[in-house]
Structure formats: structure tokens, C-alpha cells
């Protein structure tokens, strides 16, 4: 459906996109994940034709569309803050793309009603943009983008401005909707939770380059680099030398999974792999802080200062959590240790 070949975009002396290759298959949902400034919005603008690449080609349905102006690309883009037309009502916004494609009046009316039904706003045609709440605007924007049946639907931080409860509900709805419509979707977000729920495949971006691509599970289980690991929220990353089933690290000797290649590398220890024991049974640490996270497991995150080496994050259940200032011993679970790429 969509293919990008070596796309470069430069702003001044900064590269917003640096040799980006990307493919999105028919009916696939791909989420581009990255911190702000990583180039993800630029990526969407390049595909939509709102930003010309300095180098590289863009292919849509097998045809080179690099030079095509945006209004002839037949892609849909949902803007970050929706960009609904303030002078039109909800129905007028949804009908806009259909009118541009010269649909008949009757057909347009039916399609608008159908789409507003689809996004859960039946009968909202006459409502003005000003009277729509944030969530409703988001739904109208989605209906507007879907109405002309674009070959590719792109979403820029689709749920960025909504509060958490609404976001969690909508992201599940969106996923179901895209499955049902068999829409090809390219979305960008900075929220890993959102990306993991929505996407068949995630693409992590850093400073204009693709840092890793894979299914949500692959990326979560095997972050390709220290950047990806830290972006996913894992901070227990150390230099290590692997040999014979163990690794030498500043925290001492750590077990590693079978088949880990020997030699120098970075190691990630997930917080759940840091086990608390009696002081004399493991690496002695002082508890610097404990943070109650809530959630189903009533988890507590501990910040530990080991006797030697950088600080460690550990996760444990509430009833086992020591108080700040206590001393504890720490051992490591080899199954939660991951070798990171260079």
C-alpha cells in the first residue's frame, strides 16, 4: 500500500527524517512511536504531500506519488488537534471530502449519516464545532477523514488531547473499527500503551531514524537498543561483558538467558527481574524511594542504590515492599535480562 524509500527531510541543519524506509501492507495498522521531535509528524506530512522530501520516493499502491500535490493523493489525515472547519457544522465537516470528490447530494447525505453513526454520534449533523466536546471533535475528525474512503488513513496523535479514561476507551474502539473496515492505517503517537493496543506493527523513531520495527510483543520483549529500552520506560541498563551464561556488570555477576552471544554489550534488567532477598543473600542496596503505582497487581516501584554500580529500579508487590531507608539484598532473574543491541 505505502512504501517509503530513503526519505530525507531537513529543517535548517537538523534532519527531521533521515533515510527512512518504511512499508505498510494492505489492511495493516502501523503505529510510529517516538518522543516529540523524533520526526514522526513530519513522516505523516511527507506521505500526505504537505511536506516535500529533500530526497527519497513515496509509493502509494505501487505508484510513485512523490510529486503529487496533497489534494490528489487520496489519503486521509486526522490532524493532532482535529482542525475541524469552525464555520461548518459537524455534518458539513464530514461532507467536505465527499463534496471535493463531487459526490451526489443524496449519496453525500447518506454517507454522512452513516459515518456519524459509525463514530457514535448519530444525528449530530447540525451541531456546530464549538458545541462539540474534545472527544466528540475527535470523532467528527475521524468521520471526516474516513468519509472519502481514503486508501490510507493517517492519524497524528489521534488521542493526544483526551484524558486518560476516554483515551483508553477510544483506543479500543478505534482498533475494532479499523479491523471491521479493513482500513490501512498509519498512526503516530508518543504513548506506547496506545501504540501497543492499536498496532499490528510498531515503528520506534529516534532523531529522524527508525530505531526498531516489529510487532508490539517483539519490541517489548526485545528492545533493539538502549534508546528503545529507555523510551519504553526501562532504566536498568548497564554495560556488561557476557561469557558462559553469565554477564559481568557493575552490579556483579548476572545470569543471562541461554544463547546470549558472548562479548561486550548493554544489558537491560526489567524491574520485575530484580528480586528482593535478605541483606546477606544478594547485592546489598539501600532503598532510596518507593512509589506506589496502583494497578491490578498493587505494584510498588523501588529506587535502590546498590553498594556498587548505578541505581536500580525494582518492582514488587505492596505487601513485600520495604520502607525507604531500609537495606535489602538483591538478586537477578535471568529470564528478565535482555541483551540490547549496540
Amino acid at each position, binding site marked *: 500500500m505505502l512504501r517509503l524509500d530513503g526519505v530525507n527531510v*531537513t529543517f*535548517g541543519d537538523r534532519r*527531521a527524517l533521515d533515510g527512512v524506509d518504511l512499508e505498510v501492507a494492505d489492511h495493516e495498522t502501523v503505529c510510529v512511536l517516538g518522543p516529540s521531535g523524533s520526526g514522526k509528524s513530519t513522516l505523516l506530512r511527507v506521505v500526505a504531500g504537505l*511536506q*516535500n522530501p529533500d530526497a527519497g520516493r513515496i509509493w502509494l499502491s505501487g505508484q510513485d506519488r512523490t510529486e503529487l500535490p496533497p*489534494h490528489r493523493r*487520496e489519503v486521509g489525515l486526522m*490532524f493532532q488537534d482535529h482542525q475541524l472547519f469552525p464555520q461548518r457544522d459537524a455534518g458539513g465537516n464530514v461532507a467536505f471530502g465527499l463534496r471535493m470528490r463531487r459526490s451526489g447530494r443524496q449519496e453525500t447525505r447518506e454517507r454522512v449519516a452513516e459515518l456519524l453513526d459509525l463514530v457514535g454520534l448519530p444525528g449530530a449533523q447540525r451541531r456546530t464545532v464549538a458545541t*462539540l466536546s474534545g472527544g466528540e471533535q475527535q470523532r467528527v475528525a475521524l468521520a471526516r477523514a474516513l468519509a472519502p474512503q481514503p486508501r490510507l488513513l493517517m492519524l497524528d496523535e489521534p488521542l493526544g488531547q483526551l484524558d486518560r479514561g476516554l483515551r483508553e476507551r477510544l483506543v479500543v474502539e478505534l482498533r475494532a473499527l479499523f479491523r471491521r473496515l479493513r482500513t490501512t492505517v498509519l498512526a503516530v503517537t508518543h504513548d506506547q500503551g496506545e501504540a501497543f493496543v492499536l498496532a499490528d506493527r510498531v515503528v520506534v523513531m529516534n532523531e529522524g531514524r527508525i530505531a526498531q520495527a516489529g510487532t508490539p510483543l517483539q519490541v517489548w520483549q526485545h528492545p533493539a537498543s538502549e534508546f528503545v529500552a529507555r523510551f519504553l520506560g526501562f532504566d536498568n541498563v548497564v554495560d556488561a561483558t557476557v561469557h558462559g551464561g553469565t554477564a559481568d556488570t557493575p552490579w556483579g555477576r548476572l545470569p543471562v538467558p541461554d544463547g546470549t552471544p558472548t562479548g561486550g554489550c548493554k544489558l537491560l534488567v526489567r524491574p520485575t527481574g530484580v528480586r528482593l532477598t535478605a541483606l546477606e543473600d544478594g547485592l546489598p542496596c539501600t532503598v532510596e524511594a518507593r512509589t506506589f503505582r496502583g494497578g491490578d497487581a498493587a505494584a510498588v516501584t523501588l529506587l535502590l542504590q546498590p553498594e556498587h554500580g548505578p541505581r536500580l529500579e525494582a518492582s514488587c508487590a505492596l505487601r513485600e515492599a520495604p520502607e525507604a531507608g531500609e537495606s535489602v539484598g538483591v538478586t537477578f532473574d535471568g529470564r528478565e535480562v535482555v541483551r540490547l543491541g549496540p
Partner: protein
Amino acid sequence: MGQGVDLARREVTPGKDSREGQTAGQQHREQREHRDSPEHRESPEHRARRGNAGGALRLALMAVPVAFFGLFFAYPVAAIVGRGLRTAGQWHPGRLGQVLADPDVLHVLWFTVWQAAASTGCTLALALPGAYVFARFDFPGKQLLRAVVTVPFVLPTVVVGSAFLALLGRGGALDEWFGLRLDTSVWAILLAHVFINYAVVVRTVGGLWAQLDPRQEEAARVLGAGRLTAWRRVTLPALAPSVGAAALIVFLFTFTSFGVIQVLGGPRYATLEVEIYRQTAALLDLPTAAVLTLLQFAAVTVLLAVHARTVRRRQSALSMVPAAQTARRPQGRGQWALLWSVLTVVALLIVVPLAVLVERSFNGQHGYGLEYYRALGSVSSSAAFTVAPVAAIGNSLAYAAVATCIALVVGGLAAAALTTRGGGGAVGGLVRGFDSMLMLPLGTSAVTVGFGFLIALDEPPLDLRSSWMLVPLAQSLVGVPFVIRTMLPVLRAVDVRLREAAAVLGASPLRAWREVDLPLVRRALLVAAGFAFAVSLGEFGATVFIARPDAPTLPVAVARFLGRAGEVNYGQAMAMSTILMLVCAATLLALERIRTDRSGEF
């Protein structure tokens, strides 16, 4: 007027279910930051590519306004200055010194400056509480009152003069009731100036004040600042540049005041503008008039430069929220007292003069009636006119309509040029200079422009002396700055990404302009047309020179009536002023209906 709320604003709708934790202002700011983030800027090459096209487009758009101003502003003004300072092909810069050393001229200059300063001070003192009340209080009839307050601003200055004459002058309302006459004192002039400019302060300062986030002040209070300290430390600094800009505009207007002084000043008081008129029209002393014109020109240029700087400084980031959120009903005795005192000031200062004007127009020699209005319909009633004075209404409306069209075309093109992106630093600088240039007619002596028209536009191919086009051309000069100032913020506020959204949905660039820009701008265009119409209708300084005797405009007719002795002439002046006031007020009320959001600068 002035550039009240120059900050580009967009409708920000606070969500009901989702954005409670965020203020609209925050959202707004985030959207902005997002838009300005590097990801949304273009690459230099791309920008350069578009820049060349944009620069060319800008220059093309500027061509018509520049030609218009060169031909109908710069050329006539230069011609009259040249006529004054050059005899037999020789320049006489010595005239400058001669005139400037003249004690009479110094006296006029001194009076011009101090009355402008005093008028500005009085206006601020009376209108700032009004700005606060309009910004922060919600009360029934607020919309109507806002319109009422604005009526004087669009009222022809000659009408203002006659209203105050009816109130304060010989045989005026106060004279009858209390034996009090102020038309011989400077107070009448100051009051009339406050009357006209009250709206400038209320609308520009109040417009910004209404949008300042009250939570800024609340934050200061929570941090331990008292009510007054919080206001002084938080609100005042945010308002100060806007107060400064409003003060400068008021000073500019009163500095160049003509109609009011002409009617109320008598022989004792004259501003530079009045003196220029006297020197040209009465004494035919062109050299002195030329020097005075240059003097006024220099002063106005300085004022406009300072104003432009103030406005630029004001465009710093302020925490803004939609105005509707900040106003609420007054609470407590103090706030009610403030509201009532402002209402009293408005009643005494604005409603009473207008009411007295209307009353005088009906108060004939034989009791109340339509006597003066009927007299307007006949030729014989006055030797001042060769046609029935009522014809002046038709003339005025026709002239103003043509002037409005010219102002819309010229001002619209100029505003488009000012908001088009592209072109390098050189084009940018050129455009900024162009922006200031277009403001100049607001402050330049209208008398000079009018007389300059007669002197400069008298040779083929541009012999317009006997053409009726001369009047609307001169009138449109003052309309253009209003059109530009009204259109600019709206054009600037059209979000680029709305156009992008339209493009992605399949709209070609032209279609996107028609579907997105035009509907957003249409209302501003109507508002601009209304203002241009009102100021054209009231234009006096230039029109008094160039209107043909058989085709006077309303203000010219009023002035002619006032210049003649006799009860009937006076009554007819009042009647004509009333008609003029009604036309202007009707235009304004129509505008208030169109403009439900206060997005313009006036």
C-alpha cells in the same frame, strides 16, 4: 481604533468531558508550540522555492496599493509642500526657521500639544474604569451599551462639535438650565475629545483585558499578593503596552483634531490642522501652511513609529482565554458602585450630548416640530446652497459608497500582501515599511491632502478637478487604514493547517481558499466595509476643499450652516447632524450584529 487586540486569536472550545484539567489558554499555547515546532517548518530549500513565488506574489499584491498611495497621497502632499517652499525653481528652506520662530505659530504648536496631552489624560482617566467594566462584568444591555459607546467614534467630528455646541454653547442646554457656557473655554474641546475617543480605550484595552486569564491574578493571590499588588504586578504589566498603544492613538487623533476645534475652538483656539486650514483657505499663505504641514507630518511619523513599537512589544506571550469566560455579574457593593459610576459617566458624557443634539433639531422657533427638517428640503431657505440641502444626504451616501469600494480593494490587497508568506528579508523589510506608510493618512493633515488634490491633480492626464471622483478618492484614503487593521488579524488567524486539512480531503489550493479562507474572512470584510463607510461619510478636512459647491456632503453642509448666523441655520445644522448621526449609528449597529466575536482591532 488602534491596534487593540493584534494577537492572532482562534476560537478555543474547552471540552466538556476531556479537557477539564487544562485551560483553553494552555491548549492554545500547546497548539501554537506544536505548530511552531521544527517539524512543522519547511526546509530551507523548499521555503526558498516557495519563498520566491511568495515574494513575487507579495510584490504584485502591493503594486496597486503603492500606486494608489503614491498618486493620491504622496504626490498631492509633496506638491503642496513644494508649492509652499519653492518659488521660481528655488527651494527656500529658510522659510522653515522663519515660520517656526513666529510666536503665533509657537502658540498654536503649544496649544496643539497640551490639549492633545490633556485630552489623552482625561480619556484614560474616564475610560479605563469603563474598559474594566466591559471586560470583567456581565450585565443586561452590555451589547447595546458597547454599541452606544462606539457611536461617537464613527460620528463625523463636525457633528460632535455641533452636539457639544448644543450642550455647552450659547443658548445651549446648560446655558438655558444653569446659565453655564463652556464653548469659550477649552473644556468643551477636551470633553468632545473624550467623547470621541472613549471607545478607543474601552475597545482596545477592554478587548485585551477581557481575554486575560483571571487565574493569573488568582495565582498571584495564592502566592501571597494582596488584591492590589496582584493587579499591579500581574494584570497591569500585561495591560500596559495596550494602554500605551491606545493612549498614543488618542493622542494622535486629538493632535490632528480639526472638525471639533473648527466648531468649538472659536477664534482663540487652533490646532496645527486648523491653522493649516486657516493659512491655506483664508489667508492663502501657502509657505506657512507648507511648513506647518511638514511639522505635523514629522510629529505624526514619530507617533506612529512609537505606536508600531508598542504594538510589537505587546505581542509577547500572554495567557489568553475566551472573553466570554472571564465576565460575570458584579458582586459586592464596590463592584456595583463601579458599574453604576461607569454607566453614569457614559450617560452624561455620551448619551446626553447626542440627546441634546436631537432635541435641538426639533426645537424650532415655534415650538417642537419638523420645521428645520422641512427647511432642509427647500433651496430658498438658505443662501449657502445652490441646491436643496437635503441633496447632501444623497451625495454623501453615494460618495461614501464609492470610497468604501476603493478602500476595500486597496486595503484588501494591502492586507493580503502583508499576510502572504514568502520573500526574503528585503521583501519583508519593504512590506513592513509599506505597513507603516499605509497608516500615514490617519495622521496627515486632511486639509493638506484636500488642497493638494486641487493643486496636483489638475493637469492631464490626471485632471480630476471637475470630476466627482475626487471626493471619494480623498475619503477612501482614511478608510484604507481601517480596512487593513480590521482584515489583518483575521487573515493572520486563519490556521495554515485548516488549509492543509482541506487539501488532504481533496481541495485544490484555489478551492481551499474559497472553502476555508473566504468564509472566515467574509465577516471581517463586512466589518471593514462598515468602518470605511462610516469614516468616509464623516470625512471633513479634505472634503471641505474638494466638494463642489453644488454637491456638498453632510459634514460640509453642517459646517456651512454653523458658519452662518441665525436661528434657522443653527437649527438646520442640528437637523442635518441628527440625520448624519442616525446613518452612522445604523451602520454601526449593523456591524455589531455581524461581529459577534471581537476579532478585529477596533
